[in-house]
């Protein structure tokens, strides 16, 4: 007869195995990386899912830039120092000099621009099939469920992480993905009341996670890492600042 603790251990092991099969996280025996703290907590097995499809959406140029920045931080953590990434977009927009502050080496990214939507999907799919890439970032306008399913299948086979950024889509249809994010910029803040624009500061909403708990964070990016502020004692709320 097994003890309660042993049983719990067994269940945990099975769960992690199932998750691994579903590409929802690594088996616990593998070294868990906490580069993705605090986001890892929302995902099953406390692991940020790599080799999966993440979907982002934004409707304005400003939130588009914030989303781009956030994706750059995630990609930078994934690529570390030797990964090669592909950035597919409709037009030349990303400024390589602006990427370095997010921990992503601009010279390790291959940018592809194409105006044709069909062509772009083909490129993203082919790139996701190429195991040698670390991540593929696709800035796309529309994505139907069938198309996303194709990308998802490619990702499951190759283990490449895909970030699909839907910029100004005409509607939010459901797509097959492991996680759905929405990033909006927040007023930047300093710990003390220094003047000037501070570090990037975002409202990050994790709207959907497979087998996980959707969550939201207000988080800053500073000196190469995420800076969290608990929701209650947010240093200066926007309204207060207005009053001041």
């Amino acid at each position, binding site marked *: 007869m097994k003890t309660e603790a042993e049983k719990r251990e067994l269940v945990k092991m099975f769960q992690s195995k199932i998750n691994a099969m579903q590409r929802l996280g690594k088996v616990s025996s593998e070294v868990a990386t906490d580069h993705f703290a605090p986001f890892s907590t929302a995902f099953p097995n406390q692991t940020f899912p790599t080799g999966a499809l993440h979907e982002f959406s934004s409707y304005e140029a400003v939130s*588009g830039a914030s989303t*781009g920045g956030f994706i750059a931080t995630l990609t930078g953590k994934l690529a570390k120092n030797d990964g090669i990434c592909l950035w597919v977009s409709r037009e030349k927009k990303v*400024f*390589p000099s*602006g990427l370095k502050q997010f921990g992503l080496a601009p010279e390790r990214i*291959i*940018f*592809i621009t194409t105006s044709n939507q069909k062509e772009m999907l083909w490129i993203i799919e082919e790139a996701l099939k190429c195991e040698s890439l670390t991540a593929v970032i696709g800035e796309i306008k529309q994505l139907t469920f069938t198309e996303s399913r194709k990308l998802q299948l490619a990702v499951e086979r190759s283990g490449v992480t895909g970030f699909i950024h839907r910029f100004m889509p005409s509607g939010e249809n459901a797509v097959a993905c492991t996680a759905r994010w929405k990033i909006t910029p927040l007023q*930047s803040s300093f710990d003390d009341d220094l003047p000037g624009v501070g570090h990037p*500061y975002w409202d990050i909403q994790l709207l959907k996670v497979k087998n996980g708990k959707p969550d939201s964070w207000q988080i800053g990016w500073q000196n190469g890492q995420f800076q969290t502020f608990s929701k209650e004692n947010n240093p200066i709320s926007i309204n207060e600042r207005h009053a001041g």
Partner: protein
Amino acid sequence: MTRYASIWFPFLLSEHAIRKQPELCEVPFVLASRKKGRMVIDASSKLATQKGIFSGMVLADCKALFPELEMLESEPGKNEKLLLALAEWCIRYTPFVATDFPDGLLLDTSGCTHLWGGESAYIETIKEKMKSFGYTVSIAIADTIGTAWGIARYSSQNIVPEKKQHEALKNLPANALRLNPLILSKLKKLGLKRIDSFIGMPRESLRRRFGPELPTRIGQALGQELELIVPIKPVEPYMERLYCLEPISTATGITIALEQLLQTLCTRLESEGLGLRKATFSAYRIDGDIQQIEIGTGHPSLNTVHLFKLFEHKIATLEPSLGFELFVLEAPTTESVSEEQAVIWNALNQNDKKIAELIDRITARKNTNVISRYLATEHYWPERSVKEAEPLWEKATVEFRSDLPRPIHLLSKPEIVQVTAVLPDNPPLFFRYKGKIHTVSKSDGPERIEQEWWISDGLYRDYYCVEDTEGARYWLFRSGPYEKEQPQWFLHGFFA
């Protein structure tokens, strides 16, 4: 052993005229052009020749003899054009084809004839084909160009066995040695009409009497002196050919042919330590049309599967119609595959190859796909601070800087905004962008970036990072100083 074939077209121009106007085959006709004020015949048709009319005669004389003689204006340089076209068509029989003006072709048939089942079958095939085009030809194969030329024109024989040039030539007239008319008339005057009457004479005395041409020509005909042909198309060192028994008109057939050719070409390149950079796949259609598809790779490649993928979607552009009878795969550009070159940055070899192949596939697919990698340059001016890596795997010489605030999205063309600022050098208080007023709550700056005078003239820019009350961060700049006129403000980028 080298073997040469000489093809002679006795009625090249007139038969071409018949091809154009079939009704001419019933009547004797000549092609003539104006020379020194009178019409001189350039070429006469088979029927006209039988009546004793040859090129070089004056048209008026011939008209007096045969009033029913038809006349066509001849086109200068026509025979060269025709021969060149015929030579290109003959590439299916051997890669080395040369034109032999004014009325023949030369083929280096070494190692080719067995594909048609021997030399006589080879000659028959060409004769048949030429006959179907309407050309009468006389073909001879011999060890030397000189002998083949003479036999084709002055003998009924077709094939001269190896090293039997002397026997084949001895009964022919002296004309069979490609001599100029002056030497021929001298020989005639001395009664040396047949080749065997002077071929045995000492070369030195021949040289003294007739000049250096005669001994040279004899030497070339007998194979004692080297003679080379200049092929109309330079033969690519890396070329593979595939002949088809039956014309191929399906995509599957073309696919099989291409795969086979890639396999042989890559095996050959691999043994020489080379990789393919550019390849041309040509398909020769049965009606003489030649179609080509091309690919290029960013890295020397030997991966047949990958190369085939690059060709794959272009196969559909080939139009087989009645079918292709010959496929040729050429590699005009190759590069040596060396170990250090295979390493991009410091990632693993295998990975690099896969990424390079992916890039090739994307490039091959459509021209509208722009692939670029960016490197830092030593410029502050934002538009010039990055450059495209050329080639794609160029190594960075300058590090990207992270100490200056730079936006993540940069507008390719700065957009005009209306700005309110308290004092000339103060950051903006409000700005209007696309009809919306943004209230600035925080700002940094200015960061002045001067024009690089050695590159371009213009105003300097004062850059400000501003954050509006909604938390959105922008990169604005003022172009030039406050003077009589208000300076223009621009929005240049978005911060994350």
